């Protein structure tokens, strides 16, 4: 399951997508919108995505996870539109036979998402707004 949604992200369907009898570890990662950035108060965040390509790039990450950690799976959802402070902008659930692979796959998946999935974030402050650049994105081979 690799989806974009304008609604609050529900974790259960994502977890169900990767739960398997042979998976002894299931790990949920939630990325939460923060109320501050470099000392400035953030009023809200707005995400936009390239529909179609974003899901396809997430699915590629899913395929890489399967190859790197045999028996593991990942599913993810990213929220788009306005996301109030304190809510999940992204949820990544990994499953694996053992916890080491589940943790490694989770870390890999969020880093890869930040580098390659076409999604953008605008931070809105009291006195302006900024499109934020992921450091991982700036290291991507294309830049």
């Amino acid at each position, binding site marked *: 399951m690799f989806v974009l949604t304008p609604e609050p992200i529900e974790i259960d369907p994502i977890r169900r997508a990767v739960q398997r009898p042979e998976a002894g570890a299931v790990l949920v990662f939630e*990325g939460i919108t923060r109320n501050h950035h470099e000392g400035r108060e953030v009023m809200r965040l707005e*995400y*936009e*995505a*390239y529909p*179609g*390509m*974003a899901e*396809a790039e997430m699915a590629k990450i899913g395929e890489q996870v399967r190859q790197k950690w045999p028996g593991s799976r990942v599913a993810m959802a*990213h929220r788009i539109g306005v996301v109030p402070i304190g809510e999940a*902008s*992204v949820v990544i659930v990994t499953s694996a036979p053992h916890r080491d692979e589940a943790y490694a796959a989770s870390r890999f998946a*969020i880093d890869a*998402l*930040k*580098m*390659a*999935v*076409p*999604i*953008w*974030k*605008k931070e809105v402050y009291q006195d302006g707004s900024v*499109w*934020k*650049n*992921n450091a*991982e*994105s*700036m290291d*991507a081979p*294309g*830049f």
Partner: protein
Amino acid sequence: MQVTVHYFAVLRERAGCSEAVVDIAPSMTVGGLYEHVFPTGPQGVLPVMFAVNHEYVQSAHPLNDGDEVAFIPPLGGG
């Protein structure tokens, strides 16, 4: 020859639209199209990646009639 160009985030705001159909010369590359659309570069040099038909490509990638092009500014997902 025509391609559809998608603009996102900072580039969408600078272009003033999210999507446009652009007439191009037959031998144009995706990087050439970017320079064509933003002649001086938007506010100087903005690092950008390119996608054609939902796949990342290099700037030298040649365009075909009907391609769906996207200029991908630095990402902010997560």
